[in-house]
C-alpha cells in the first residue's frame, strides 16, 4: 500500500515537472526517464533472470540508430519508427540470447563485453555510411508538439518519455508479478529445480533477453529524438557499463531502484563536469572513480542497492 502511494506521488511529481522546470533541466529529466527504461530492461535480464550483460549499449544503439534511419531515410514518424526499431531489438536480443544459453554465466559476460566494445566500430562501418552517416553520425529532427498541444519541444519530449516509461514500468511490473516473474527468478536461483518443475528455461531466458533488448531499444529510440543526433562514439563500452552501474546502484532485481540508478548515471557525470573548474581537465576521471568505488562498495555492503537499503530501512521503522 505504502509503495503504491510512493509510486503515485512519484508519477504526479514527474508529470508536473514541465510546469516548474524548463529547458535544460527538462531535457535532463527526459534523459533520466530514458535511462530508467534501459535500466529496467537490463534489470529484467540481469537482476531478475540472472543473465549478465555487459553489452546493453549495443541494443540501445540499435534502437537509436534504427529509429533515426527510419525517420531520416524513410520519413516515418517517430511513433512508428521507435516501435519498429525496438521490435528489431527484440529479435536481435532473442537471437543473441540463443547462443547465450549454451554458455551462460561468465561466457555471456565475455560475449556481451565483446559486443559492447565492437559496437562503435560497427556503427561507423564505411559500407553502411549511406544509412548511418558513418563516423559523422545522423541528425534526427526533434518531434513536433505532442498531440497537437501548444507545447515546447522539451515539454513534448519529456511527457512522451514519461508516458512511455510509465507504460513500460506497468508492463514489467505485471509481468514480474505473475507466473512469468516467478519463473524468471526461479531460473536465476534454482535452475535445475526450475527445469524439473516444467519451466522451459531456454525459452524463458531467450525471451527475457529479447524483452530486455526491446526495452533498451525503446530507450535508444527515445534518446535519438530527445538528443536529435546519433553518433557511434556515444554507444561504446562506457554506455554499456554505465547501465550496469545503474542497476547495481539502484538495486539488482528492483523496479523502483532503476530510478535511483538512472538519476545516478545522469547526474554524477554532470556534477563531475562542473568540478573541472576546481580540478582541471583531469576531473573527467571523477565519475569513473565514483562508479568504481560505488560498485565495489554496493557489492560489499548493499548487494540489493539503494532500493534495498530503503526497503530494509522501512521494515526496521515499521518494526520499531
Amino acid at each position, binding site marked *: 500500500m505504502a509503495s503504491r502511494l510512493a509510486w503515485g506521488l512519484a508519477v504526479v511529481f514527474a508529470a508536473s515537472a514541465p510546469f516548474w522546470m524548463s529547458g535544460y533541466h527538462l531535457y535532463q529529466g527526459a534523459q533520466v526517464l530514458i535511462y530508467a527504461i534501459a535500466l529496467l530492461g537490463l534489470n529484467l535480464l*540481469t537482476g531478475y533472470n*540472472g543473465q*549478465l550483460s*555487459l553489452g546493453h549499449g549495443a541494443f540501445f544503439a540499435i534502437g537509436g540508430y534504427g529509429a533515426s534511419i527510419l525517420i531520416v531515410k524513410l520519413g516515418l514518424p517517430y511513433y512508428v519508427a521507435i516501435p519498429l526499431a525496438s521490435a528489431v531489438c527484440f529479435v536481435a536480443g532473442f537471437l543473441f540470447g540463443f*547462443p547465450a544459453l*549454451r*554458455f551462460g*554465466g*561468465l*561466457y555471456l*559476460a*565475455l*560475449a556481451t*563485453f*565483446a*559486443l559492447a*566494445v*565492437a559496437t562503435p*566500430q*560497427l556503427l*561507423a*562501418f*564505411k559500407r553502411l555510411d549511406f544509412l548511418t552517416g558513418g563516423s559523422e553520425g545522423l541528425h534526427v529532427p526533434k518531434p513536433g508538439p505532442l498531440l497537437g498541444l501548444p507545447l515546447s519541444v522539451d515539454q513534448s519530449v519529456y511527457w512522451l518519455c514519461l508516458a512511455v516509461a510509465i507504460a513500460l514500468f506497468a508492463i514489467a511490473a505485471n509481468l514480474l508479478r505473475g507466473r512469468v516473474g516467478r519463473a524468471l527468478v526461479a531460473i536465476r536461483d534454482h535452475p535445475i529445480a526450475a527445469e524439473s518443475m516444467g519451466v522451459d528455461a531456454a525459452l524463458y531466458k531467450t525471451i527475457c533477453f529479447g524483452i530486455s533488448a526491446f526495452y533498451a531499444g525503446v530507450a535508444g529510440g527515445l534518446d535519438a529524438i530527445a538528443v536529435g543526433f546519433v553518433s557511434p562514439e556515444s554507444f561504446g*563500452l562506457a554506455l554499456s*557499463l554505465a547501465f*550496469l*552501474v545503474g542497476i*547495481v546502484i539502484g538495486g*539488482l532485481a528492483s523496479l523502483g531502484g532503476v530510478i535511483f540508478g538512472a538519476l545516478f548515471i545522469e547526474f554524477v557525470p554532470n556534477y563531475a563536469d562542473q568540478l573541472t573548474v576546481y580540478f582541471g*581537465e*583531469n*576531473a*573527467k*576521471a*571523477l*565519475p*569513473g*572513480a565514483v*562508479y*568504481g*568505488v*560505488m*560498485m*565495489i562498495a*554496493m*557489492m*560489499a555492503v548493499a*548487494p540489493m542497492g539503494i532500493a534495498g537499503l530503503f526497503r530494509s530501512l522501512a521494515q526496521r521503522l515499521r518494526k520499531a
Partner: protein
Amino acid sequence: MVELLHQLSSGLALGGVYAITALALVMIFQATQLVNFAQGEMAMFSTYVAWALLQNGWNYWPAFAFTVALSFVGGVVIERAIVRPFAHAPILASVIVFIGLGFIFNALAGFFFGYTVQSFDTPFNGRPWFGAKFMSAHESGAIVVSLIVLALVFAFFRFTPLGLAMRAAAQNPASARLVGVRVGWMLALGWGLAAAIGAIAGMMAAPIVYLDPNMMGGILLYAFAGAVLGGIDNPWGAVLGGFTVGVVENLLGAYVVGTEVKLSVALIIIVGVLVAKPSGLFGRRIVARV
C-alpha cells in the same frame, strides 16, 4: 608478398601481447573460475607508471623492472584487499567488482596522467633482431619479450615447488591445504603474477597502440578472444589462441574487413567459438578413473 609478410609479422608482435595477456587471464580463471575484467585497466595503469618513470629520466630497463615488481605487489594487495572478500559471492557480484576495479584504475590513470595520448618509448632501436625486411625493431623485440615471458612462466609452473603448489591450489584447493599449501596466498600470488605479466603486455603494446587511459580495451578484448579460442582452462591453448588472434585480426583488418571494424573480428571469434565449440580448440578433456 612482402606486404603480406609484413602484416603477418606485425600480427605476431601484437599477438604476443594478446598471448601473454590471455595467459594471465587463464591463470586467474584456473584458480577461481573467474575472468578478471580489470586485467586490461590494471595493465594500462602499470604502463603509465613506467611512462612516468621514463619521463623522470629513468633508463628503460630499470623502469621496466621496477614497474613489473610494483605491479606484482599491487596485484597481491588487490587480491587480498578487494577480491578476497568476494570469494564466495556469486559470479555476478565478482564480475561487478572487477568492472568496478577497472573503472577505478581508468579514473586513476586519467586523474594522475591526463587523457592526452602519449607516445611510449621502446628499448628496441636500430635494426630488428630478425625478419628485418618485414618488421620494425620494436615488433621483433616485443615478440622476443613475449616468448621470454612465456618461457619463464612455463618454467616457473613446471620446475619450481611454488609453481607446483600454485597449480595444486588451483586444481584441488581442499587437497592442497591438506598437504600444507597456503591456498589463499597462492591466489594472491596468482594475481601478482597476472598483474606483472599485464604490465609487460602494456609496455610492449604501448609503443604500437600509443598510451592513453583506454588503450587496453581492445587488447583485453583480443586477449579474451585468444583465451576463448584456445580454451579458457588451457594456458597453452590460450597462448596459441592469442598469437592466432593477433595474426588473424591483422590480416582480416588489412585485406578483408578493413581496419575500422577490426574489433568485430574478436566479437565474431568469441561468439563463434562459444556457439560451435565452447571448450575452445584445445579445451581439455580430463581423463579420470575412479
